[in-house]
């Protein structure tokens, strides 16, 4: 294994420009600290991850554990993921270990297990079948996230319309399918930008208690809008 290249991967993850928001950091900090709706708070938290990587590991560990809002906890957790080189650590783990961690509730381990094994799930129906029997929510979410990539318009296999995806996000028969739809919807909205921040927040308010995965889709889109 070319460890130096892997090390570079871990270090470079620090520089990941997922949602760069330096110019808006003050407003977002206000949102992330005071917003009561979890999805909106988390959207702000996702947009603040890069800023949070400037904090100390000790502070982040405290915020991740006891931060006052879901957004603060999410931002701290993701910043720690970067600073601790967690992606590299997971990448080098064997599948059995990853699976054990995933079943114990480690979402990142579940995601990496699917990354390692994605060649075995090259068709959407294979993941859909998997979701019928999966026992862990973390694995269902990881599988659903991968499945969402098939549902995006433009995908050579399995692409769905926005209307189909909204319906699936609301009423999909299992968690993985709903997460898949949410993943694809977020991607569509980021591309098309159909709603403003205010409109997106209104949509979140209207669905958060009834359709949590649809709210998750809006959350991802809102995080992107916050980053612009």
């Amino acid at each position, binding site marked *: 294994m070319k460890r130096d290249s892997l090390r570079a991967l871990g270090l470079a993850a620090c520089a990941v420009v997922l949602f760069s928001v330096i110019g808006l950091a003050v407003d977002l900090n206000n949102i992330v600290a005071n917003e009561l709706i979890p999805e909106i708070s988390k959207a702000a938290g996702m947009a603040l991850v890069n800023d949070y990587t400037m904090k100390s590991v000790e502070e982040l560990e405290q915020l991740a554990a006891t931060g006052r809002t879901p957004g603060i906890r999410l931002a701290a957790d993701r910043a720690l993921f970067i600073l601790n080189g967690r992606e590299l650590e997971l*990448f080098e783990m064997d599948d059995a270990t990853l699976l054990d961690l995933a079943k114990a509730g480690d979402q990142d381990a579940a995601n990496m297990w699917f990354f390692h094994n994605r060649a075995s799930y090259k068709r959407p129906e294979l993941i859909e079948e998997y979701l019928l029997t999966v026992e862990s929510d973390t694995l269902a979410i990881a599988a659903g996230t991968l499945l969402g990539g098939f549902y995006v318009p433009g995908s050579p*296999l399995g692409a769905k319309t926005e209307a189909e995806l909204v319906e699936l996000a609301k009423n999909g028969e299992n968690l993985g399918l709903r997460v898949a739809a949410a993943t694809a919807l977020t991607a569509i909205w*980021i591309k098309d930008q159909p709603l403003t921040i205010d409109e997106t927040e209104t949509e979140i308010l209207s669905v958060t208690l009834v359709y949590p995965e649809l709210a998750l889709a809006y959350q991802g889109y809102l995080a992107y809008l916050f980053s612009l």
Partner: protein
Amino acid sequence: MKNVLILAGLLLIPSLAVFGQGYDTMPADARILPIGVAGTAYSDMELGVRGGTFTRSTIEDPKAWNANTAHETSTTRFTALMSLGLVNLDHVTGAIVPDLAKSYEISEDGLVITFHLREGIKWSDGVPITADDVVFSYNDLVLNEDVDCNSRDGQILPDGTFPICEKVDDYTVRFTLSTIYRPVLNSLGVPIQPKHKLAQYVHKLNPDVPAGTFNETWTLDTPLDELVSNGPWIVTAYQPNVSVTMERNPYYYAYDPAGTQLPYYDKIIDQIVANEDVQMLKFRNGELDVYGLRPEDIPILLPEGASKGFTVMITDDAGYGTTWICINQDIGLADGTNAEKRELYRNVEFREALAHLLDKDTMVQNVLNGLGAPQWTGLSVPSPFYAGRDYYGGPITENDAVTFEYDPALAESMLDALGVVDQNGDGWRDLPSGAPLTIEINTNDTTIRVAYCLIIQDDFRAAGLNANFQVVDFNTLVNVLVGGTGDIVQLGLTGGDEPNSGKNVYTSCGSLHAYRYSACDEPDEVDLRINELMNLGAGTFDLDEAFGYYKEYQQLLAYQLGYVYLCQPTFQFAYYDYVGNAFKSSPTSVAGGRNGLLTELCFDKRL
């Protein structure tokens, strides 16, 4: 590999390349690439700005820096960007175009090709490039038995001789052929090397060095300031297992229409990583500007593109190579058996019925996961001679494609008309005489081939043909194919741009004319015409004329249904949107030329 990190640090070779100052003004004979010029294949590209670093990755270290002795793509990935030839394949169209030469002319009798070099252009160290470099590269390297050069075989003319290369003057070189042979034009695009740097290592020219010395020249141990380039880039740093850095050659002779010297980027860094998964993660994290993705990467990258600012290109363009079934029209000929089956297989209407039972769309969807394209003829789609084009190097229109649509009902009616019907009530169609008809389909144990065969078997059976699919080992399969003993073999062939390379497959006495070896002794009209067309295509330097011959041969081949083509994987790649002109990538990963990302034309839009 525990010590790789330490070793890499010790072997770090710093950037020491000796660069000249570059041209004061654009050379009069500079090559102008028509970027953004309407009516050209470059019209959809943008003029760029200079500067920045382009970051790619590879999973193999290079083996040397010597373009003559390079045998594998991990090396040619770099040498191809430092050692250009007199002609090259156009970046976009694949057509043969002058490169280091500004033009060439062919004598009326077709036996003399005269190349005119670009005057005033220089090697990366500032030394002029002249005819002496060309003659040295051809006579003292390519044709020199002492040099381990894999491009020598490609120079052999049909009568076994080599072209004779002579200097006419400092900027003119003449190649004399013993016979007209168009494919040699492509072969003459061998790397041109700097005589002033390398002649001293050639035993023939310098008896003081032992035989074979050149083969150990420009190895990875060579100080990088010894390297000289005539291409867009020159290697300036190499850290084993970590990276190769190439910087812009200040004397590269290509410019854009605005007068900006290419390449646009200042440097390329090729990160050397452990495997493709690391490449994928690095691209995802923004460490690589481009990534040649695999089908399994698409569902991960596709939803992330808009938020992270990259594009996942899923093209409809098939890559090189062919995939087919071969219906053995000589079955039983060797041992005097299967006469009726042989007669049936030789009936083109029967083969046409089988062609209508090939569900290529399902193969693309189910076997290639939607990332493939149906194929109808024997020349690779990227070739400028591909018959789906309207003219040599033109865009692919498929205007004259010869296709047999998946139509089981039509296939069954054709079989009925041939008398291939179920006569004994067992549910399977019989030979017209009433004898049972069984069709064995063979391939070797590869996932994709097996999947193709299962689809074919199912469709044949649904049409009442008693088809049985058997996996055999590869050597057995090849023996079945070339021995003419099986019914149907499913396999594929690699492919390239030059149709003449398929001569051994498509001419009646070719060693891979596996659908009917007896055609060598008993050619039919179609065989004779294909033989003629292949000779005509190789016997003219008029590329448009040659295209006409090759298009006709491909269409005849498609109608003949000896090899019946299936489908071919398309290619995909991803790039960050700030890389200008990155969308114009192409099927294989040899960078910098026709078959790779067009490194000299990409630029950083953020500058």
